[in-house]
């Protein structure tokens, strides 16, 4: 046998569709850019600082954990950068550096790496970090307090906070058009609705996130908010307001569809999204927190393994419902 000419042998298949994790990560970053750039444009260098700091420290923690856990270096897959970027997008522009440092540590180390790295995290890492900050340093994530020194030329009260404290009377300050165009105070990457929607549609069309989750999440919010609104229009805001404020669009297109913590079958994806939307509005309307997206998505993350038990019958098993 010709020992100088050996061929590469492996198991089938010998073709691959060319997809890869890094391509997916970089596309998510690309899709998030419109909203992030708008945030940086509005809030200036501090916002840029938070975003850059968050991304670099996420990558740094990932690298540290790779070497501590003696695993291959995984910063090239872009997932740490995505977590860092999404985390930054949820923060107010005036967040101090040490909060970002602690937050990225929680996201990467506690949210992701201690469970075994990518794919093994039961909860969305960025949300774990933001939830921890919300509970530990409440003032840091109170947008009215954090952005007190900013005047961007529109009504500078955080819409959900204003709704919580002053009721529906103040809603005339926020027209849907303004909300869509980012004319609202809030987190760096969560206020520019149009940018988030464009990014989300891009990700759905490219197949990087599932439309089932994004749409059912939005539908869940819309329907629940509508029910509340119909029941008592004086006390509860209309559904469109809920769709365009807070972390809703971030949640629909970037947080809820995170791979490891969301289901993969069709019906479970719909239930998952709808439950997250339902819980979001419940927390906003009758709960203690101003925004419900963070805890709503974390709650359904926990229930995710149960949702995914609902799956179609496999071929050749029992009655066939093909």
């Amino acid at each position, binding site marked *: *046998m*010709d020992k*100088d*000419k*050996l*061929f*590469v*042998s*492996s*198991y*089938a*298949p*010998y*073709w*691959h*569709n*060319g*997809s*890869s*994790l890094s391509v*997916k990560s970089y596309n998510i970053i690309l899709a998030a850019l419109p909203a992030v750039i708008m945030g940086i444009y509005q809030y200036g260098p501090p916002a840029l600082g938070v975003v850059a700091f968050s991304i670099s420290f996420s990558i740094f923690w990932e690298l540290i954990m790779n070497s501590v856990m003696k695993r291959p270096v995984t910063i090239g897959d872009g997932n740490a950068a995505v977590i860092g970027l999404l985390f930054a997008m949820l923060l107010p522009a005036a967040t101090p550096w040490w909060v970002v440092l602690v937050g990225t540590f929680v996201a990467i180390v506690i949210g992701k790496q201690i469970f*075994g*790295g*990518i*794919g*093994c995290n039961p909860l969305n890492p960025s949300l774990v970090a933001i939830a921890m900050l919300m509970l530990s340093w409440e003032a840091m994530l109170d947008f009215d307090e954090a952005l007190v020194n900013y005047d961007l030329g529109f009504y500078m009260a955080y819409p959900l906070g204003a709704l919580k404290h002053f009721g529906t009377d103040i809603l005339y300050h926020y027209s849907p058009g303004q909300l869509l165009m980012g004319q609202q105070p809030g987190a760096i990457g969560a206020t520019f609705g149009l940018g988030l929607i464009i990014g989300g549609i891009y990700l*759905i*069309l*490219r*197949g990087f996130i*599932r*439309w089932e989750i994004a749409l059912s999440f939005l539908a869940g919010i819309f329907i629940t908010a509508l029910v509340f609104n119909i029941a008592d229009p004086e006390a509860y805001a209309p559904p469109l307001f809920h769709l365009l404020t807070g972390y809703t669009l971030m949640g629909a297109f970037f947080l809820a569809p995170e*791979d*490891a913590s*969301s*289901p*993969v*079958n069709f019906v479970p994806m719909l239930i998952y999204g709808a439950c997250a939307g339902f819980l979001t509005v419940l927390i906003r309307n009758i709960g203690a927190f101003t925004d419900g997206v963070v805890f709503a998505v974390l709650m359904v993350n926990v229930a995710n393994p149960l949702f*995914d038990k609902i*799956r*179609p*019958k*496999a*071929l*050749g*098993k029992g009655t*066939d419902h*093909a």
Partner: protein
Amino acid sequence: MMERPFFGFGRPKLKYAEIERLTQPDIRQVPVPAQITVFLDHAAEVKDLGLRQGTEVKTGEKLALYKDKKGYLIAPATGTIQNISENRTYTDRRFLAITIDTKGKDRWDTQFIDEAESPPGPENALAYLAFLPGISDFTSLIRMDNPLHTLIVNGTDPDLLVLTNQLVINTRPEEIKEGLSHLSKVTGASRVILVVPPNLRLQAEKVGAEIRVIDPVYPNTLPRLMVQGVLNQTVPANGTLTDLGIGIISAEAVLALKTAFTDKTLPVEKLISVIDKDNGVTCARARIGTPVREILSTLNISTQQGDRIVFGGPMTGHGVYSEDMPVLHHTDAILIQDKSRVVPSSDSSCINCGECVRACPARLPVNMLVRLLENGLYEEAAQTYDLLSCVECGLCSYVCMVHIPVFHYMMLGKHELALREAMEESNG
């Protein structure tokens, strides 16, 4: 390589090649090489072997393998047995490799011609046609006590870019017709259905059998899915097609039946689709047992260290490591892949993106299966997550974003389960 489309939120759509794709319409004849090798499943002891080195054989001669057990070999060429060796595959299956030094012109053995004077029937087929080209074991379709009632003749091809069966339907429908009449006599099947892709419908009508047109999208021509699509019957996960009385045979094998019983010649050649590095397809005809090297040199295809040679198509084929490997009677295609296109697998953990679940034609929870199989929990994989429903298409590995060899894990799981079952049976 077929890339993921830019807009990719649906299932992968991989279409089978159409006959127009052939780079050359004519079939290239590969000359009989100086040495041919045949591989045979082998379960007995080596000392029981009846074959000896140095035995002179004639083309088409039936050689008894063992002294007193059943089992035979049809010599594909005239020459001398140069070597007999026992080998093991990586799954620990034993097989014999028998090498024949070919000599001069073919001298045909006449035993089959003499016996084939009697009309074609199951006894004749069992005695001579175990190596019918185009099917891994033709004799498995012949059941004396409880014959199969339905046979599906596959006029499509089992994998992407393979054109072997389509070429047969396209060029030789009349001969297929004759082959089908022999097929019914040999197997006793009352219903024979010819399955073809839409573009071969007209040619198929010349065959005069019941015709079904199949949507030429992978993996519709895999056995279990074909039964589902053509007969609207579901093969139980832990059962086989034979349990339902259904068999599948390729069009090429039917043509070989015609050669055997009408032309009274034992078929010793195999039609092979050779897929070159640019995915061009050429059909070649070679003696069973011809090393790949001879076929590639006839077709002027050059290879280098680190390329890939695959027996079969890109989704379900088997990779080989040397150009010395011979084509067997069921090698439908040879795929040559340039080393720049070889996509390595990785040991990353599953990110739960769900691409495999959406691609799976058997609706398996592949994301859960891969977690269990990586940890060797084969029984749980079969009981809770339906491992045995897998139709073996390979789409899970094809779409995997982190390049996990998912399909390999699935097949390993099935293999381990089969081993355990066999062990339990032998322990009573």
